[in-house]
């Protein structure tokens, strides 16, 4: 290949590398279904504004970042969006300064959603597709996805065929050279082209870029498009890099994958039997440069973004009105509660907390991220590795073991589980092995007849619950957590006293919970219960890294009940009275059952109070279930409690619960600001009292951690809703779990990210609406500004329209709106309308 016309624009290795790395940063991570944490799929673009990101993604991936116009027009017709909302939205754009709302709507209606051809970035696969009428892109995704699933497989295949010991690029290259499919597809020179590429991934990438004749201006947008095309697997590899960054493992997975994709494209360019391809590809590179330079937002997209802004304005207006109206009367909480119940900030807690407080005025509730400030790695009985029970933004700090308190029983359980696993392994090799599966089937297959019936009626689970698998039920019931410091497989486990005191101190600080301890403090983690649901862990606690919060709640309670820890805390001016008892609990969000976890340890002295508490919890559960039934159950008139319980055990149920659907608000304030408001299970609630936050450290913590996490969750729902094809996981009835990592929709295609359609829509209406998160914080503006100034990422999120930040004053009134760049404005009178009304 001698005749480069534009040698001068060729790239040197260093800038190639940095462009490749920058591109990898644009891909948001994805976690496997084992701990399906909510992720903001736009995370890599947080330094861009919402508009810019929408514009970019529409070109690189054909991604929609708003609903179709008809959705908004419908909302205007139904008066959900008012003219004021629209006017406010329009006022943000200079070019619409003189346009009246009426004219704007007229214009939008005319355009409707007609599919005007939009400029999209084309890969070699796309250019070749146009010339040969073959969908090379779909073919590439199918081949790459097939390899990736085999390479990352967590235990589906009995025969690991992609050599997981090799690095990504080597494994991919060997596989692709072995694969005969390109030849069958008519790409005779594909293998030859690949063979001549270097074995070292980065060199192969540079060489491919040369063969593709990409220029500095075109490279960035091209690479972004390339990763986006296999966006699911890219995201998974970004997730591996993410975890390894936190825990000090090897990074660069995604970079290697990008090299593989680049190699694929260059080989395709060299092997498609179409003489015009190279000429067209050259023209396309020019187009890439142009598109890369374009900053202007396509007008159709621009209009939809304005409509979305108006839709958000409407939502915000309602929130402000609701909160401000309720807070015209001062709510006086019970200063001497019997029970203080701490829940996760999760929107599902809001509903339960409200009902619990209604059931008894002697209960006061609080909200904090559901790992309760105890980021632990939890190692289940007999397991080799643990699970990180903390938000994915931070690393787990200590390792704790699940144990059965009685030593003999514990050892027995460990042996039981190991033994079970060993026999299971032998059995599996028999059941799944080639040929031996035939001797399995005849005699054993028939036993699946009764199993099928007991599973169908919810009497058994299709497979045992992972938490109790291989251990006798009675023994599992006694399982607890040990904080004892010791060595296990060359690693230190347990928590030292200093560590315990330190964690307890910062945890209590983070909750603004340093005095007025009640007689009973309930710490309720949450988990979900569903069967046969690949996305089950997505319903668990996100703050616990996609696990049940049970372990964290147990750890927190163990630490805080320890007299030595309390002594240590007293030295740091937190005085927990002797009569205060911390009680661990687990809130099952599917059934709204709250179970106490450490009951057998609880002292006689508190028994009567606890009995009462259990009654309240049960009653609150019943009320919560009937409240949720309205959204959840289609056939009313049945016994609600039973119906909801049945759902949680139904292997055919695609909507065991609504999860966090509907989430649109995060309120950071003392509970008395919201205790009397029905927020409809759509608000995250974090307890925070700025007056006791001397240096605003806690505020900084809340804004940098829980606020980011709630935004991740909110934008995961948002993205899955507005573009389920790219950022959602499609139809649950077609899900095909691949490699134990994620799902394919059907037979082939890319790994799917985000939420299934069934988690957003009930068949008749949306259960989540496209609202960007409103964050309401009761704190001085200057304090918030200081936090924003010090934390670029958070500032980006607030400045760029990913989060709407609002300030609440001491009277519980939402009065200020953040405009960006540390500027604030008063909430307009019209929005506060309810005050007058």
């Amino acid at each position: 290949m001698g005749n480069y016309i534009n040698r001068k624009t060729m790239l040197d290795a260093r800038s190639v590398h940095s462009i490749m790395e920058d591109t990898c940063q644009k891909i948001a991570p994805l976690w496997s279904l084992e701990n399906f944490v909510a992720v903001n799929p736009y995370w890599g673009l947080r330094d861009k504004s919402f508009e810019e990101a929408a514009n970019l993604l529409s070109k690189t991936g054909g991604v929609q970042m708003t609903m179709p116009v008809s959705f908004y027009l419908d909302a205007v017709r139904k008066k959900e969006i008012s003219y004021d909302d629209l006017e406010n939205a329009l006022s943000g754009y200079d070019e619409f300064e003189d346009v009246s709302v009426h004219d704007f709507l007229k214009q939008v209606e005319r355009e409707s959603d007609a599919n005007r051809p939009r400029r999209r970035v084309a890969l070699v696969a796309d250019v070749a597709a146009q010339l040969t009428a073959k969908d090379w892109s779909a073919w590439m995704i199918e081949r790459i996805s097939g390899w990736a699933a085999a390479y990352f497989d967590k235990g589906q295949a009995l025969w690991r065929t992609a050599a997981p010991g090799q690095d990504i690029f080597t494994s991919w290259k060997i596989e692709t050279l072995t694969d005969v499919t390109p030849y069958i597809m008519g790409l005779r020179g594909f293998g030859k082209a690949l063979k001549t590429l270097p074995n070292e991934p980065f060199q192969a990438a540079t060489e491919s870029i040369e063969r593709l004749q990409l220029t500095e201006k075109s490279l960035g947008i091209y690479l972004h498009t390339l990763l986006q095309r296999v966006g699911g697997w890219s995201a998974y590899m970004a997730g591996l890099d993410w975890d390894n960054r936190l825990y000090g493992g090897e990074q660069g997975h995604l970079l290697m994958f990008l090299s593989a994709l680049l190699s694929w494209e260059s080989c395709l360019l060299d092997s498609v039997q179409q003489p015009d391809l190279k000429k067209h590809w050259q023209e396309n590179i020019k187009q890439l440069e142009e598109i890369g330079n374009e900053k202007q937002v396509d007008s159709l997209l621009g209009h939809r973004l304005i409509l979305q802004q108006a839709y958000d304005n409407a939502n915000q207006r309602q929130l402000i009105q609701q909160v401000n109206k309720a807070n015209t009367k001062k709510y006086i909480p019970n200063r001497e509660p019997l029970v203080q119940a701490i829940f996760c900030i999760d929107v599902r807690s809001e509903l339960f907390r409200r009902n619990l407080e209604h059931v008894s005025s002697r209960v006061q509730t609080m909200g904090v991220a559901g790992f309760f400030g105890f980021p632990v790695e939890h190692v289940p009985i007999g397991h080799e590795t643990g699970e990180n029970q903390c938000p994915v933004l931070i690393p787990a700090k200590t390792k704790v073991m699940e144990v059965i308190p009685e030593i003999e029983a514990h050892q027995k359980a460990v042996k039981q589980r190991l033994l079970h696993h060993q026999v299971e392994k032998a059995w599996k090799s028999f059941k799944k092995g080639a040929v031996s599966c035939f001797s399995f089937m005849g005699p054993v297959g028939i036993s699946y007849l009764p199993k099928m019936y007991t599973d169908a009626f919810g009497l058994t689970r299709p497979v045992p619950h992972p938490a109790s698998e291989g251990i006798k039920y009675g023994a599992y019931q006694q399982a607890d957590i040990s904080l004892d410091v010791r060595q296990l497989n060359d690693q230190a486990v347990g928590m030292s006293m200093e560590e315990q005191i330190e964690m307890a101190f910062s945890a209590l600080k983070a909750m603004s919970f340093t005095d007025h301890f009640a007689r009973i403090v309930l710490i309720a983690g949450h988990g979900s219960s569903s069967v046969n649901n690949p996305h089950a862990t997505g319903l668990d606690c996100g703050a616990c890294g996609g696990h049940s919060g049970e372990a964290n709640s147990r750890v927190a309670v163990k630490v805080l009940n320890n007299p030595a820890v309390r002594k240590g805390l007293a030295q740091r001016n937190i005085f927990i009275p002797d009569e205060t008892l911390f009680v661990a609990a687990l809130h099952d969000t599917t059934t709204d059952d709250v179970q106490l976890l450490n009951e057998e340890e609880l002292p006689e002295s508190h028994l009567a109070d606890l009995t009462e508490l259990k009654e309240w919890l049960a009653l609150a559960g019943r009320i919560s279930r009937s409240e949720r039934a309205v959204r959840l159950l289609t056939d009313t008139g049945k016994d609600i409690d039973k119906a909801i319980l049945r759902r949680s055990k139904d292997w055919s149920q695609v909507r065991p619960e609504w999860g966090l659907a509907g989430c649109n608000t995060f309120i950071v304030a003392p509970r008395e600001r919201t205790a009397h408001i029905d927020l409809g299970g759509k608000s995250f609630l974090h307890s925070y009292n700025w007056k006791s936050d001397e240096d605003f450290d806690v505020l900084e913590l809340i804004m940098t951690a829980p606020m980011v996490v709630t935004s991740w969750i909110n934008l995961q729902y948002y993205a899955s809703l507005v573009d389920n094809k790219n950022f959602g996981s499609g139809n649950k009835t077609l899900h095909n779990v691949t490699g134990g990592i994620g799902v394919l929709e059907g037979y082939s295609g890319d790994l799917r990210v985000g939420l299934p359609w069934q988690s957003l829509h009930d068949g008749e209406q949306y259960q989540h609406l496209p609202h960007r998160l409103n964050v309401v914080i009761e704190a001085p503006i200057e304090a918030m500004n200081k936090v924003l100034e010090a934390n670029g990422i958070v500032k980006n999120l607030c400045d760029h329209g990913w989060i709407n930040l609002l300030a609440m004053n001491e009277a519980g009134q939402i009065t200020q709106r953040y405009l960006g760049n540390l500027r604030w404005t008063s909430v307009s009178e019209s929005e506060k309308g309810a005050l007058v009304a």
Partner: protein
Amino acid sequence: MVNQTLLVVPIIISPLLFILTSILSSFWPGTRPAPVIRMGAAATKVNLVVALYGIMLVAIYGASEGGTPELGGLGLTFRLDPLSMLMYSMIALLGFIIIKFSRNYLDGDARHGVFMGRLSATIAAVQFLVLSGNLLVLFLSWVLTSLMLHRLLIFYPERRRAVVAARKKFIVARLGDLSLLVASILIYLQYSTGNLETIFKAVKESANLPIGVEIAALLLAIAALLKSAQFPTHGWLIEVMETPTPVSALLHAGLLNAGPFLMIRMAFLVSHSIAAPVLLIIMGALTALIASVSYMTQASVKTALGYSSVAHMGFMLLVCGIGVYPAAMLHLVSHSFYKAHAFLASGSTVDTIRASRIKEPRRTGNPIKIAVSIFFAFLIYFVFSAFWGIDHSRDFALLATGAIVVMGLSQIIAPALDSDGYWISVVRASLLSILVALLFFSLESVSHYLLHTQLPELIEPNTLTKLLIVSVLAVFAVTVFIQIIAPVVKHTIFWQKLGVHFRNGFYVNAFFDRLTGAFDIQYLSQKLK
């Protein structure tokens, strides 16, 4: 055979109710079709009762038939005998679960009613197939099952891969239909009747098959191979997870069985034929081997299950070729329940993987321990076969089937014995293998007892067939042995490459993709309209 039209006819109530459900669904095609769901549920319940009735009928009167009078040996004749009732009850049990499952699983789907309707219609078609008492009903219901299935496969017509799979299936199915049609005509011409009972009697009485029937038997075998997605026509089957899970359950547990069922139904013809068993053995064994290895390499659960079904169908057809029909039937029933469950429970894969992060014992790679495992498996087999009174010198076919069981048993014991895990796990694994052997021999006896009236006597295979069977056993044995030692040998690039070829099913599907224009943009855009 008793003609009991009045007693036999009630059995038709059940398929008729399913048809009614299907008709009802055209009035409630959309979301939350309550009447369709109620009707479907009622149909499955009635089905269970009717199945019980049919079993009692057969128990009291023996095999019976009934239906419209046959004109020229053709008519709507339904046959109730142990074989058809076994199939019929199996479908009733599966249908109940699958319809129940679809109620919540598709809740909210914009075409839930359509789905229930198509599902019901397909179940009805399968019921007619298993009940068929003459060639006319057999052929019509054979074609009908395929057409009904087609409508389920393209339930989401906007899905590219669904359309491609349905198209591949359509081509293969029509070839199969043609084979069955020609076979039926040949048989009809020979015996001047379509009535199965009359045909079976005639075959039993004649020493050798007339040439026309010999060809017919071969065509029947071909129809069965095509119906059951045998290599190299299996491509469509591994792609059909492009349609909701209950369809996969019904397809893999119900419709796919039509191939082996046809062989068992026509066992008198097939076993008397010279060529048909040879074809079944070759194609069945080849498919069983390739697909069961491919299965082990699949990383996606439903794709893996697809390969598994292909393999098991191959195995059943192989066993039919060997002539041990009761074993094939046992396999068929067991596989159906297993596979329906496996598909419906495929969402639980993640739970299994979450539970698997437990310290694994290391394989020690001790040749003596491996040899002992294999020896022990043989021992179990010989003890049982002696106890069951199998004459090894005479019952060659049984011996062959038994040999495959032995191979399997060594796969339970070896991983446990040849490892550094608890010794008690060896005991448990051994007990399990004894249990498996016990179950195999008991259930095979039960199957034989139930079906012996409908099946020919076990025939001593001819030398050619014997040779063929021995070669198959040898290849199977090598495959098992490789698996036993695989965890302890070094993985070379050769194995990696071989693995890739297996994972891709030796690219047969890629050829079919090209043939059907799976990635063809124009074709698809036309098709999707």
